[in-house]
Each structure stands twice: as structure tokens, then as C-alpha cells.
């Protein structure tokens, strides 16, 4: 066994222990430990990724001293390493970009709690990515939920507490359904490791015994995880939670937390149930319909919104809809497009949140569009970041959004059922136009030239790049990440294809 194969275990345990150690450290050291750990996890994941690309395939890693059917396992391949790499990059950038705001919005005594929560969030995300055991996945889903709730309510005002309560209630409904599904699956198959469950499930389906419980189980798990990742009818908690929490939290919640659940769902589809059985059941059609609804309703709500942070949050609802729509297509190409969209949305949405905070800071902290007029001139780097993010979301070539949109369109056109081709293509077009309406409206708004006298009267602040070096570097890194995803998409799509093949 090569030493690099220990990376998944090390990254999970390292982030978890750094959370525990941070609880006794002073604020500043907790911050540095957190930054160091995330950087280290990112570097290790890159190492693992290069190794997995060289070797190919995937491997399982035994946790503890018990062999396969009894013990706990970790499984890693190229796709998992890529996910871990991009998630840690985005988490690092979100934290760096929101650090100044965190100082203003959160009491200084609570800062090391914030870093504990991010460490826990990172470890649970990594565990969701790497684990090969279904019950371990459930436990880390709950850890993820608790950490995310803490990240929402660390900023103390009425709105965030209500948002946290709503988030918890929806999440708990989802995890209740997920746990019930996992327990039923255990009772049907007698296993908890994903590969063993799949063997038993195939046997059950061949004997065509227990059809109804099997379908109920698939339904419970899918609905549970889609509630947790805020698919359309269950998105009510999302705008408040993303809109009023501190900006690093909003960026991490929108780009990472919901994506962790979606990645777990992909793993369950491929590695636990088996994608052929999922395609045979009708659950993908349900996801398809709700995904299409989310694409429209999320965008329409975003157009109505007057608050820039809430607008970006509603846009998240629409983007989650895209991902589920890709699942719903049921083809390999649709799934590849969805996985790419996960990466693209994670990279772009965190950039939008971080740059929106720069714009609102330059407008007396107000988030309403009327006050944001001309803020792109007052804080130039934030304006550039927001513009790039918007163009990427709308799907302008060169940026990441274009690639995922074209992947979705190709997957739809290559589909063999017209009943799925036409709705997908039409809704994709409508949703793109709606995206363009609300994002470009905002971009135009922030670049409307404003009279100097008016600005003076309002007491607006102007920020130069030299005054906010860290923030500027963060935005530039985000733009670079977006361009990498947009212009060098071929190798990434290739890794995703290989990874999904290894899954099944």
C-alpha cells in the first residue's frame, strides 16, 4: 500500500482533531490552525488526485482491525480526491474573504468557536465524500447539520436564530427520513458497507422479492437527502439562512454543505442501490420534475427580491434544481453534467457572496438595490468579482457556468426520450434568461455612474485595493478558479467520467 493512500483518513482525522484542539486555543491560534489544516487537506487531496490519476481505479482503506463485512471502510478514487480538493480550496477562500466581516459581526470571544465549527464542517464533508459505510455517512450528515446550524447562528440577531431553527427543523425531517431508509436497507440486506449492500440489493432484485420495501427505501433516502439539500418545495429556510448569517458562513453553506449531501446521494445511487435499479424505479422522474420547478421558481423569486444577499440565495435554489434535473435525465451524461455543476456552483456562488459583501460594505452596509447604485466604482475588486460571478451564472463562454450549461444541453439532446428532451431544453433556456435578468440587472445597477455629491451626502465609503489586500487576493483567486473550471474543463469532465465509472 502506498503511503499516499492514507490521505483520506489523515485529512478527516486531522480536521476533526484540529477542531478539538481549537477549543482550548486562543482566537488567533485557532484561526491559524484552521487555515493551516484546510491548506494541508487541500494539498494532500491534490497529491492523492495526482496519484489516483496515475494509478487509476479506486481503493478501499480498512478502518480499525476488522475486515470487510464487519469493519468500517473508507473508499477513495479520482473523483473523491477532486471533490475534496475543490471543497477545501473553496472553504479556504470563503474564510479568507469573510475574515474582516467576521471581526465586525461576531463577538471576539466566539471566534474560536467559529473555527471549531468550520473544522467540524470540513471533517464531516470529507467523511461524506470518502466513507464507504452507510451508517457512518448518517452520523456525519448529522455532524454536518449541527456545524452548519452553528455557523448560521454565530451572528447574533433575531433573524439568524429564526433561520437556524427553520434550518434545523427541515434538516431533522430530512435526516429522520434518511435514517429510516438506512435502517430499512440494513434490514433488507443485512449489511452496512456500501459494496456489500449493493451485492445483496442485486440479489433481491433478481429474485424479485421485497420489491415494495426496496422502492420505499429508495424513496425515503432520496427524499430525505433532497430535503436536506433544499430541493424546491423544501427551500423555505434557505434565503434567511444564507441571507443573514455572516458572509463566510453563507458562502460555505451554499457552496459546500448542500453539495456534501448531494454527493452522498450520488454515492448512494451508484454504490449502494446500483444505478440500473435507480433508473428502473421512477424516483428519477420525480427528481426531474422538482428540479425543473426549482429552476423556474428559484429564478422568479430571485427576480422579485430586493435584497442582494437574498437574491443570490434564491439563485442557489435554482442551481440546486439544475443539479437534480441532471439526475432526473437518468443518463450518464446527465450525471456528469450534474457533478460538474456541483463544482461550478460551489466555486461561483461562494465568489458571489464574498463579492456582494464588498459591495454592501461600500454602501453603508445596506443590501437593497437602491443603495447599491454605483457601488462597483466604490469597491472595484468586489465589482469585478460580482460581474465575473454573474457572467458565470448566466453561462457566458470562458466561465465555468457555460461549460455546465452546455453539458446539460448535450445530455438532454442525447437523451432518447422526447418527453425529457423538450422540457429540459425549454426550461434550460427560460431559466438562463431569468438568470440573465436578475444577475445582469444587478451588474448594471452596480455600474451606474453616480454623482459624487450624492455619494458624499450618503456618506458612502470607497475602498481601494491596497486597503483590503487579503480580500482582493481572495477575489482574484476565485476568478482564477472560475476560469480554470471554465477553460480547462476537459480534464475535469474526464476525471468525473472516470470517477462515475469507478462508482458503478
Amino acid at each position, binding site marked *: 500500500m502506498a503511503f499516499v493512500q492514507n490521505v483520506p483518513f489523515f485529512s478527516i482525522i486531522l480536521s476533526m482533531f484540529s477542531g478539538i484542539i481549537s477549543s482550548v486555543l486562543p482566537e488567533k491560534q485557532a484561526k491559524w490552525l484552521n487555515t493551516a489544516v484546510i491548506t494541508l487537506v487541500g494539498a494532500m487531496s491534490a497529491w492523492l488526485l495526482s496519484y489516483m490519476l496515475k494509478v487509476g481505479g479506486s481503493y478501499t482503506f480498512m478502518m480499525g482491525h476488522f475486515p470487510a463485512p464487519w469493519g468500517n471502510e473508507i473508499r477513495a478514487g479520482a473523483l473523491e480526491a477532486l471533490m475534496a480538493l475543490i471543497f477545501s480550496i473553496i472553504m479556504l477562500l470563503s474564510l479568507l474573504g469573510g475574515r474582516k466581516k467576521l471581526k465586525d459581526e461576531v463577538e471576539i470571544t466566539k471566534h474560536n468557536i467559529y473555527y471549531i465549527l468550520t473544522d467540524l464542517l470540513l471533517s464531516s464533508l470529507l467523511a461524506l465524500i470518502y466513507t464507504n459505510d452507510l451508517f457512518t455517512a448518517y452520523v456525519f450528515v448529522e455532524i454536518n447539520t449541527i456545524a452548519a446550524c452553528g455557523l448560521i447562528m454565530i451572528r447574533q440577531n433575531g433573524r439568524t*436564530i*429564526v433561520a437556524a431553527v427553520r434550518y434545523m427543523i427541515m434538516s431533522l425531517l430530512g435526516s429522520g427520513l434518511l435514517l*429510516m431508509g438506512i435502517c430499512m436497507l440494513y434490514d433488507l440486506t443485512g449489511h452496512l458497507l456500501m459494496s456489500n449492500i449493493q451485492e445483496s440489493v442485486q440479489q433481491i432484485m433478481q429474485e424479485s422479492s421485497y420489491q415494495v420495501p426496496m422502492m420505499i427505501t429508495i424513496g425515503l433516502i432520496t427524499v430525505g437527502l433532497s430535503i436536506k439539500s433544499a430541493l424546491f418545495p423544501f427551500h423555505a429556510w434557505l434565503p434567511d439562512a444564507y441571507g443573514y448569517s455572516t458572509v463566510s458562513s453563507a458562502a460555505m453553506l451554499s457552496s459546500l454543505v448542500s453539495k456534501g449531501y448531494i454527493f452522498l446521494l450520488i454515492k448512494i445511487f451508484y454504490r449502494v442501490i446500483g444505478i440500473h435499479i435507480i433508473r428502473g424505479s421512477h424516483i428519477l422522474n420525480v427528481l426531474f420534475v422538482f428540479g425543473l420547478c426549482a429552476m423556474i421558481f428559484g429564478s422568479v423569486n430571485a427576480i422579485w427580491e430586493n435584497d442582494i444577499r437574498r437574491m443570490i440565495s434564491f439563485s442557489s435554489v435554482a442551481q440546486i434544481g439544475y443539479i437534480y434535473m441532471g439526475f432526473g435525465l437518468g443518463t450518464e451524461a446527465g450525471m456528469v453534467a450534474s457533478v460538474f455543476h456541483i463544482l461550478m456552483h460551489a466555486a461561483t456562488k461562494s465568489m458571489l457572496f464574498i463579492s456582494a459583501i464588498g459591495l454592501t460594505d461600500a454602501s453603508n452596509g445596506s443590501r437593497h438595490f437602491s443603495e447599491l447604485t454605483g457601488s462597483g466604482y466604490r469597491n472595484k475588486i468586489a465589482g469585478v468579482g460580482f460581474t465575473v460571478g454573474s457572467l458565470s451564472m448566466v453561462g457566458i463562454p470562458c466561465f465555468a457556468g457555460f461549460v455546465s450549461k452546455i453539458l446539460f444541453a448535450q445530455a438532454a439532446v442525447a437523451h432518447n426520450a422526447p418527453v425529457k428532451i423538450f422540457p429540459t431544453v425549454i426550461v434550460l433556456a427560460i431559466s438562463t434568461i431569468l438568470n440573465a435578468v436578475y444577475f445582469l440587472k444587478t451588474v448594471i445597477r452596480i455600474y451606474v455612474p453616480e454623482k459624487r455629491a450624492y455619494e458624499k451626502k450618503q456618506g458612502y465609503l470607497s475602498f481601494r485595493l491596497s486597503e483590503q489586500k487579503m480580500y482582493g487576493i481572495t477575489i482574484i483567486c476565485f476568478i482564477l478558479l472560475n476560469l480554470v473550471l471554465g477553460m480547462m474543463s476537459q480534464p475535469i469532465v474526464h476525471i468525473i467520467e472516470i470517477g462515475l465509472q469507478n462508482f458503478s
Partner: protein
Amino acid sequence: MIVFGANFISNIGEEVAMLLFGIGFANLLFQKNLIRKIIGLNIMDSSIYLFLAEKGYIEGRLAPIVVNGIQDVDTYINPIPSGLVLTGIVVSVSVTALMLSLTVRLYKRYHTLDLDEISARLKKEGR
């Protein structure tokens, strides 16, 4: 077509668990009062543990603790569901504690436990 036969009686534990799951789920979803929601959450979680315990139990066997040196598999019930129940209880306790602390926070700030009323008040304040 569902036929209520012998299976209905022999699986009574699972059926009760499912009923309780439904009750707990509906309470967590529809109750306005936060404390009642939390009670619903606990009913829901407990029903899952009842389901697991019922599934792991084999009639006439002992708890999976080795006593008197008997290591025969047929002596004991399946220990894994019990382990899962223990893990689940830990998770549910921590989640309940978090929800209760959030409820205390909300009550101290707004002096009500009704989530809809708090939302309406927030909207009126326009913040």
C-alpha cells in the same frame, strides 16, 4: 392488495414503530409550538430505534453480552442494531440539546414559542 394475516400480528412492533414515526414526523412538521416540535422529533427518533431493536431481536435469545463463556452465535440476538440504536441515541440527544438551546434563545428574545408569530413580527420590523 394488503392482506391482514399472520404477518400483521407477528410484525406488530414494526407497525407501531411506523405509526409512531408518522406521528412524530407530522408533529415536527406541523406543530406551531417549538417545544411540541421537539417532542415530535423525539417521538420520530425513538420510533426508528424501536424499529431497529425490533428487527435485531430474535425470540428466545439473550442480550449480546458474553457470560459464562458461551460464544455460540445462536445464543445471542443480533448486536449490530443495538449498536446502531446507541449511536442514534447519541446523535438525537445532541440534536435535541441544540434545538432546546435555540428555543431558549428565541424565547428570551421574543417571549413566545410560536415560530409563525416570530416570523410575522420580524417581517413587521422589516429587518
